């Protein structure tokens, strides 16, 4: 089944993508470190590092998952995928999970960069739960990507939304500053987004605090995204076949 993630492999041969993917997390991390260093707390720096790492995972998921459909449409492969006899969700899910996993690099790069340049120690309060929270968060993000990707099947220009969704999600999910500092109306919105709970689980696992409730919420939201994503894909695919939006020709 690993082969179902083959198309994202093509990204790794795109110079621009590699350059962005390699450099962006390091730049994010540096900015975050400089901002948070004024607080003079080692723990705050690790807090910032983990948030910056997840920012990269979200960017990779957002552009990778959302763009995957659009890019397939441009290449003319979307129609080939649609006529495959397997349910379409099984075609799209490996793509979005793979792009979320590619984002893992940004978390690793951020932590290594922080350790080497800023001397941030990586003392983990709950190493086992930390190791569990990371894949759970990546899966949650990949499934959120699936939900997004479903709209791209129907709307040919939905990729414009990708740019719009990058920064607000960083803010609302507490990757940059804690959710508690956001205006009240933003809080319920943040609860609906898996990265909010994912980053909380990862941060608590590293710095100390209750991990399991946040981990549970990440898993719960993942299941909700999967069910909704699969249903929307079927529905939007049917509509796309009626409206003839699967190809560009």
């Amino acid at each position, binding site marked *: 089944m690993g082969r*179902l993630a*083959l198309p994202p*492999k093509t990204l790794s041969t*795109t110079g621009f993508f590699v350059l962005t993917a390699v450099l962006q997390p390091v730049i994010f991390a540096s900015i975050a470190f400089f901002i948070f260093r004024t607080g003079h707390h080692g723990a705050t720096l690790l807090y910032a590092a983990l948030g910056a790492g997840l920012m990269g995972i979200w960017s990779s998921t957002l552009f990778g998952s959302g763009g995957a459909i659009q890019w397939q449409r441009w290449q*003319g*492969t979307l*129609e080939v995928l649609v006529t*495959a*006899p397997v349910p379409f969700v099984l075609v799209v899910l490996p793509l979005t999970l793979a792009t979320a996993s590619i984002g893992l690099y940004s978390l690793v790069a951020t932590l290594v960069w922080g350790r080497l340049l800023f001397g941030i120690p990586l003392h983990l309060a709950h190493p086992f739960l930390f190791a569990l929270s990371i894949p759970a968060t990546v899966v949650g993000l990949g499934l959120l990507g699936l939900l997004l990707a479903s709209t791209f099947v129907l709307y040919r220009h939905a990729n414009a939304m990708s740019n719009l969704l990058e920064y607000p999600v960083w803010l609302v999910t507490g990757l940059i500053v804690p959710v508690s500092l956001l205006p009240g109306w933003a809080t319920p919105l943040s609860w609906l987004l898996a990265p909010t709970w994912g980053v909380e689980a990862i941060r608590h696992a590293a710095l100390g605090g209750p991990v399991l409730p946040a981990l549970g919420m990440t898993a719960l939201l993942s299941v909700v995204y999967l069910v909704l994503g699969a249903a929307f894909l079927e529905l939007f695919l049917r509509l796309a*076949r009626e409206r003839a939006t699967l190809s560009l020709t």
Partner: protein
Amino acid sequence: MAVIEALDLRRTYRTTTGVFRRRTLDVEAVRGITFAVEEGRLFGLLGPNGAGKTTTIKMLITLLVPTAGTARVLGLDVVRDAREVRKRIGYVFGGERGLYERLSALDNLRYFAELYGVPARRQKDRIAELLDLVGLSGREREKVEGYSRGMRQRLHIARGLLHDPPVVFLDEPTIGVDPVGARELRQTISSLVANGKTVLLTTHYMFEADALCDRIAVINRGAIVAEGTPADLKQLVVERTVVEIEAYGATEAAIERLRTLPEVSSVAVEEREHSQLVLVQSAQGQELSQELAGRLDGARVGRVTVREPTLEDAYVALVTES
């Protein structure tokens, strides 16, 4: 038993124009098409660009929902039983798109083999068989972006056959391929039928349809204007003669004047580099040839020849007279 059936199939596209004053426009791409393809036969849908061939094929392969009418493949409804239909069909679109450029041919085939449910233990052998069939063995580890058009087209065919479907749809498979490559592709297509597959082929090359198809339906402006064996279609113009007039600078008005002559059945113009070839079909070509040339006033007339009609002339007559 009919393997592919289309019953009064229709498809309308809705488009919008304007930004502020949006107007919706309905374009009827397919207007009530009916045909059936028997098991093990190669059926050709022949028509000019924009005739509705691709729209018809897309409805049959479950990519488009028909606006009206029904279509069945192996007795399965293409809308209601779409997934079951997909398991049993392979399709190949002509052109450069539809492959992962930055992956090798082998990776492309491996990925699609997974999606098309080819059992893991069969994949390696099946891919090797198909690479052999389409003549790409030895080149499979190269990236597709370096492939020629003919090689891409052959890879498309291999992709469409991965799950060994009993029914294959080929949409203009030789478009843009050089003559030698196209001939090889036609041999591959013939071998599909020899191996018991039912094939529906669309093309706008008359000779291709003549060489490959058991039956042909000529489609124009979304409707079938004639159907039969290549011999049946030739019969439609057997009574006629074709006058070929080489002309330099014939105006549209002069051509139109030829069309209005009561003895003339159809007029087609082939643009050449410095001249035009005016093809006039008529029941009495021999006697008419001089008069026809004379009617092209304003244009310099070169060679005028009179010949027997071919299948291509039958096609031209069907498309221009419908």
